[in-house]
């Protein structure tokens, strides 16, 4: 028992969570997150986790040896890996990259292999093989082969185009050049010829061709600046620094050529920020770390040239090790569609089995006694029935739509292009169009229930502007003149006295300028001096103008403000920093820099002034600075103990345009919006009000409120629980009385408290102790299970509670927590989620959500890289969801419904016919018609509808967000709709068969010649079918463009054209055995009687549809019908 109590107490102990702090840094929680959700784990979650686990563990073993300027060294036998049986290959990859999949020889086999991984294609291949068995087949070999080839061909062409593009790119990249030492001299070599151990020279703005160890650079202190935008999306410059010894001795060509150092390091891995190794040179060993490594994909900046030693080349480089882990997200409709195809399989097998039994029975009753049916085979009726089962599987195979998947792909691709092309999602200011990076999720955009949004850079512009400051208790930044009088209208402060001012800062407090210039209060100058000196901003000069590159926008804003107020940061070397203080340039020695990170939330710098004074400057979050003012605590932060407060800054980050409108539109579409931000509670709340997520009449609940609510609920559930708990249906009680507008604001630490996600270090230590007895072990697993159940219940309760609120704001949350919240809603609400964010801290949640949207903003491209859709402004989200999402959903649903309908209407005619042919698997159509029906006669109109249809225009879609609800509720495509479509198909097939049957039963033709022959009958049904399904798609199309009209009438015309060709005398003479229907079309369609039959059949098929549509529109009009009528 003691163990159980111990582990439980870890949850119950502890005081209230602190709202102010971000609960923990990310690294610590990784394993905890992995622990959760082992019971019910959605697919997506698992995929994500696998991706995380794939991060190769960081290994300390240094088995990777690289010898400089010694290519032979790497070809030694013990570096060889056996590839196939005896072909050995060096473990060192060369630097040629290969992102393409196929070459000219392998394309056909490899691509076919890829395509046959799909079960649908395998199915049709099996059918093809079945058809080759003469006892079974009643269909010609080409009926399945031609459509299959077409489907495979379309996909293959798509793959080919992609691969050709990759080939071109690879070639372009592999043929880039750089300078490599060869035979003692630098020679220009292509990237693909670079090998591990080569010493190379890179110049300014060169791409780094491989992962290299920086040996020396042209800059002082062996610095080398790189831009890592390709790797992590961060656009600010980072510096790398080589070992002092290599920088000192390896500057000249001749010394580089004789460099013979040996590097031992870890094997290639995908950790971008980790590297350990040792350089052995001149009988000394030097430790190496990630700071000395330039990674492939970086660009050299601000450095004239640098030299490096290739450590990892080509496929071994970290960027390549990170590629290729593409996750597959699939949509709800995908899953539904698969289940429906399985359903159809079952129906197909049952039908075939039923007909096979019918055949066996018929053989026994009739067939055995009919001399004219003697076929020379001595089969028993049951064996004939068995053969006929397979025969019917073949004949009825078109129930499973062969071209379904490829058509769905084409439609989605088209819809993605429409998103890319949308001018109204194009942000001209940054020349950024919207981009559908994943082309398989479009219709899911029409089904979103929950949006999880980042705040900074997503809702706001992430353009920081210096607004106010407080120095020495005096607040600056209001509108006032130099003598401290407030004015409502006052012109901007004129910064022209300052040569370094950029003229972009709008500031209205003339008194501050007065203070700076007069120097009455030394703190004011000190304050701006701090801003100018305490940062990690990089500077370069473009046309003589200072250009700052900051790691974060707020740091840039502060340095820029200082520059405008006369304290311009001019230059930085490794040990010095140069500032222009109101015109006088002074250089300070930097003794130490403690960089900012999200744990410490502050940065500090120690400088020595030219006069020799040593000062420490520190800036950071209010809470952490406040703790350190005039307080003594004997911890390791000794140097920061007694700080004097200089002042505080206020920085403004404006909301993006149209954010409140977008949020209210989306709210009207019944989409719940959760804001997840790392900001503090007050900021988050303010933003909530600013973007109208919160209003005056919103009741705001905080962490403690809901914690007590949840506790009460848990108690309740526990009391009610016991033996019956499992059997009693879960009662859905509300946490809040209905009505009223509620919002939830919860901090990361409360989130952990509530979700029992607290760090359980103690229980982990306990776990380490090996359980001694069997009893103990059982107890432990039991308690663990109980704990898990409790946690799950608590999580579920929390999600239920949160979903009762109209808005949820989570603040002070870590990236992991963001992902966790998304996952909770995904798991317990079974709702479609969308996460939108712009920064690296949103990547987790973007990947976790069903759909991830990246805002290409100020914070690099990392969010965009991992997103499914990207655009530049939050307000485009409403167009993406309400217009593109809704359209895509409606189109896809209509498409699928029609597709199943048309295949059933087509195929089941065989079924009805079987009752009149002794269940002999005789087809009701000509083989060529079966071959071409799906690919030619009925495919284009439905494809075009899937691409172009609009029930209401985009403007109306946006004006009436309520139209969005159909998708959320799965109203347009679900099992009911599916069965209705099937039923429609079944009924149509009945009409298609029985009306011609009635008409043919006892007739003769115009000339007395028999029109009731099989071939005329087949042509009659086929013609009626083609006209019916094409008119039906016409009825289903609500947006008739000329292409739609053209395709519908074109398909019908194509059918008649091809039929007359295939039935012509000429083609029969050429291929007598393939074209057997010679003369049928001309003979049959010459007869008015057959035309009358066709017209009647089509009319009977379509009139009820028109009547039912009209009735339902009159009596139960849908929302879009109503909107359209206005």
């Amino acid at each position, binding site marked *: 028992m003691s163990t159980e109590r111990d582990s439980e107490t870890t949850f119950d102990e502890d005081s209230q969570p602190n709202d102010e702090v971000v609960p923990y840094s990310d690294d610590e929680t990784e394993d905890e997150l992995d622990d959760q959700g082992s019971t019910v784990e959605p697919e997506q979650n698992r995929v994500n986790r696998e991706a995380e686990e794939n991060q190769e563990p960081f290994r300390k073993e240094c088995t990777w040896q690289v010898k400089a300027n010694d290519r032979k060294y790497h070809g030694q036998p013990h570096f060889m890996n056996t590839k196939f049986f005896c072909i050995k290959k060096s473990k060192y990859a060369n630097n040629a990259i290969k*992102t393409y999949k196929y070459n000219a020889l392998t394309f056909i086999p490899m691509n076919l292999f890829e395509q046959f991984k799909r079960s649908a294609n395998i199915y049709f291949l099996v059918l093809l093989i079945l058809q080759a068995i003469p006892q079974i087949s009643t269909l010609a070999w080409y009926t399945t082969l031609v459509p299959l080839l077409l489907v495979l061909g379309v996909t293959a062409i798509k793959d080919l185009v992609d691969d050709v593009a990759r080939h071109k790119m690879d070639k*372009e990249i592999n043929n880039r050049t750089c300078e490599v030492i060869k035979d003692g001299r630098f020679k220009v070599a292509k990237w693909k010829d670079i090998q591990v151990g080569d010493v190379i020279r890179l110049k300014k703005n060169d791409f780094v061709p491989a992962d290299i160890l920086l040996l020396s650079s042209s800059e002082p202190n062996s610095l080398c600046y790189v831009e890592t*935008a390709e*790797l992590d999306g961060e656009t600010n410059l980072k510096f790398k620094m080589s070992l002092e010894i290599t920088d000192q001795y390896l500057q000249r060509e001749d010394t580089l050529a004789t460099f013979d150092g040996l590097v031992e390091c870890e094997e290639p891995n995908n950790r971008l920020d980790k590297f350990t190794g040792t350089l052995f040179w001149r009988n000394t060993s030097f430790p190496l770390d990630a700071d000395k490594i330039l990674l492939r994909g970086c660009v050299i900046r601000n450095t004239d040239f640098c030299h490096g030693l290739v450590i990892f080349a080509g496929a071994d480089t970290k960027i390549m090790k*990170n590629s*290729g*882990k593409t996750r597959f997200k699939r949509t709800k409709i995908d899953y539904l569609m698969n289940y429906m195809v399985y359903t159809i399989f079952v129906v197909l097998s049952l039908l075939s089995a039923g007909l096979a039994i019918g055949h066996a029975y018929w053989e026994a009753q*009739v067939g055995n*006694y*009919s*001399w004219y*049916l003697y076929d020379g085979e001595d089969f028993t009726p049951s064996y004939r029935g068995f053969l006929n089962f397979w025969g019917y599987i073949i004949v009825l195979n078109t129930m499973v739509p062969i071209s379904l998947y490829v058509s769905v792909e084409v439609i989605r691709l088209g819809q993605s292009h429409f998103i*890319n092309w*949308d*001018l109204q999602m194009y942000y001209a200011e940054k*020349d950024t169009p919207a981009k559908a990076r994943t082309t398989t999720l479009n219709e899911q955009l029409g089904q979103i229930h929950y949006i999880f949004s980042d705040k900074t850079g997503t809702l706001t512009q992430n353009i920081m502007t210096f607004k106010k400051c407080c120095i020495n208790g005096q607040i600056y930044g209001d509108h006032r003149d130099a003598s401290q009088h407030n004015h409502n209208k006052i012109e901007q402060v004129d910064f022209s006295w300052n040569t370094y001012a950029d003229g972009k800062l709008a500031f209205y407090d003339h008194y501050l300028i007065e203070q700076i210039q007069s120097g009455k209060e030394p703190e004011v100058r000190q304050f701006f001096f701090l801003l100018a000196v305490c940062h990690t901003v990089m500077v370069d000069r*473009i046309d003589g103008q200072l250009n700052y590159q900051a790691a974060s926008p707020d740091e840039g804003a502060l340095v820029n403000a200082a520059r405008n107020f006369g304290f311009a940061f001019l230059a930085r070397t490794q040990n010095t920093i140069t500032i222009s203080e109101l015109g006088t340039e002074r250089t300070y020695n930097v003794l130490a820099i403690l960089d900012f990170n999200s744990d410490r939330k502050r940065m500090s710098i120690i400088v020595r002034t030219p006069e020799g004074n040593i000062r420490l400057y520190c800036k950071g979050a209010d809470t952490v600075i406040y703790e350190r003012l005039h307080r003594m605590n004997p911890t390791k932060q000794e140097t920061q103990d007694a700080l004097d407060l200089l002042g505080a800054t206020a920085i403004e980050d404006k909301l993006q345009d149209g954010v409140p409108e977008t949020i209210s539109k989306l709210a009207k579409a019944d989409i719940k919006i959760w804001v997840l931000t790392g900001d503090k509670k007050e900021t988050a709340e303010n933003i909530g009000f600013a973007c109208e997520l919160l209003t005056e009449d919103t009741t705001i609940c905080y962490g403690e409120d809901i914690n007590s609510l949840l506790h009460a609920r848990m108690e309740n559930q526990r009391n009610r629980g016991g033996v019956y708990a499992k059997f009693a249906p879960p009662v859905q009680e509300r946490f809040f009385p209905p009505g009223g507008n509620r919002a939830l604001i919860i901090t990361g630490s409360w989130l952990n408290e509530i979700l029992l996600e607290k760090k359980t270090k103690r229980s982990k230590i306990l776990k380490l102790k090996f359980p001694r007895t069997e009893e103990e072990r059982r107890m432990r697993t039991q308690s663990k299970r109980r704990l898990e159940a409790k946690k799950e219940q608590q999580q579920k309760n929390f999600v239920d509670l949160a979903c009762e609120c109209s808005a949820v704001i989570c603040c002070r949350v870590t990236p992991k927590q963001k992902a966790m919240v998304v996952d909770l809603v995904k798991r317990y609400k079974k709702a479609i989620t969308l996460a939108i964010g712009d920064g690296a801290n949103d990547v987790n949640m973007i*990947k976790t959500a069903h759909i991830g949207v990246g805002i290409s903003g100020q914070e690099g491209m990392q969010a965009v*890289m991992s997103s499914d859709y990207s655009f530049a402004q939050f307000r485009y989200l409403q167009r993406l969801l309400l217009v593109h999402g809704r359209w895509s959903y409606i189109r896809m649903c209509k498409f699928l419904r029609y597709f199943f309908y048309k295949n059933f209407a087509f195929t089941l005619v065989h079924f009805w016919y079987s009752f*009149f042919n002794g269940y002999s698997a005789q087809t009701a159509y000509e083989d060529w018609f079966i071959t071409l029906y799906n690919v030619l006669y009925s495919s284009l109109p439905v494809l075009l509808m899937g691409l*172009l249809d609009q029930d209401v225009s985009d403007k109306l879609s946006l004006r009436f*967000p*309520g139209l969005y609800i159909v998708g959320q509720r799965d109203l347009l495509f679900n099992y009911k709709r599916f069965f209705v479509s099937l039923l429609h198909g079944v009924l149509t097939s009945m009409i298609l068969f029985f009306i011609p049957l009635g008409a*043919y039963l006892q*007739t*003769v*033709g*115009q000339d*007395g010649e*028999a029109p*009731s*022959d*099989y*071939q*005329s*009958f087949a042509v009659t049904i086929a013609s009626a079918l083609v006209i019916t399904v094409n008119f039906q798609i016409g009825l289903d199309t*609500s*947006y*008739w463009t000329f*292409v739609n009209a053209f395709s519908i009438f074109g398909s019908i015309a194509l059918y008649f054209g091809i039929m007359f060709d295939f039935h012509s*005398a000429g083609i029969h*003479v050429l291929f007598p055995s393939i074209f057997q229907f*010679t*003369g049928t079309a*001309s*003979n049959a369609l010459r*007869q*008015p*009687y057959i035309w*009358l039959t066709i017209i*009647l059949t089509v*009319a009977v098929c379509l009139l009820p549809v*028109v*009547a039912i549509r009209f009735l339902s529109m*009159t009596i139960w*009009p849908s*929302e879009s019908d*109503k909107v*359209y*009528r206005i």
Partner: protein
Amino acid sequence: MAMNYNAKDEVDGGPPCAPGGTAKTRRPDNTAFKQQRLPAWQPILTAGTVLPIFFIIGLIFIPIGIGIFVTSNNIREIENPSKECEPYRRNEDKPIAPCGAIANSMFNDTLELFLIGNDSYPVPIALKKKGIAWWTDKNVKFRNPPGGDNLEERFKGTTKPVNWLKPVYMLDSDPDNNGFINEDFIVWMRTAALPTFRKLYRLIERKSDLHPTLPAGRYSLNITYNYPVHYFDGRKRMILSTISWMGGKNPFLGIAYIAVGSISFLLGVVLLVINHKYRNSSNTADITI
């Protein structure tokens, strides 16, 4: 995914410090197609469009139906129910011409029609053997094997189908109606769609407009029974029928047209009533958004 290496990115990424001097933007084209603004007609099932369809179809279908029905009724048929036939015999092995089960089971009863006039001698009615098959079948699909004039020579080395009485080159004396291009054979080879079927046997041509084709009187039918249907419970009929523009007699289509037309008309009325009833409410209906 985050780090999905894409060679293209490396190329596009270009040196950012020198943004391409050209004014080439990534602005999407403002075309009607790309902006999904193609001119379109949005048909909507309103009372104005739907109801007339039903009435028009009713008005068109009913007269068509009546027309077909009347025509069909004017077609006169005389039936002669068949009787039991004798069983079939086997034959020796040799390449069979024509081969196949359908050919083997070719109908080989012969029917002769006689007018029993006032004289005691019955007058045979001329039954036309040619012109009963499709032109394409006779001239394209079915050809005799190449060779000399003698058809028997051309079919040398083959044997007749097991169930046939005569070899294929002895189906008729007329060389243009013998062998594979024998029209009886061709008609048989055009398989029927349904288990109960009719096939054209002979034509009785009208000699002149003044005389009826078959003048009133007593006729006798002489049947040579060759074709066995006893084993599978089959039945044979001989039907004498006139034909019209719509072929032989068949009441189904006419009745179906009348029925569909009437239902359509009725549906039109019902929908009109319903529409009238709901029109007011739907016009004032608010959109609950």
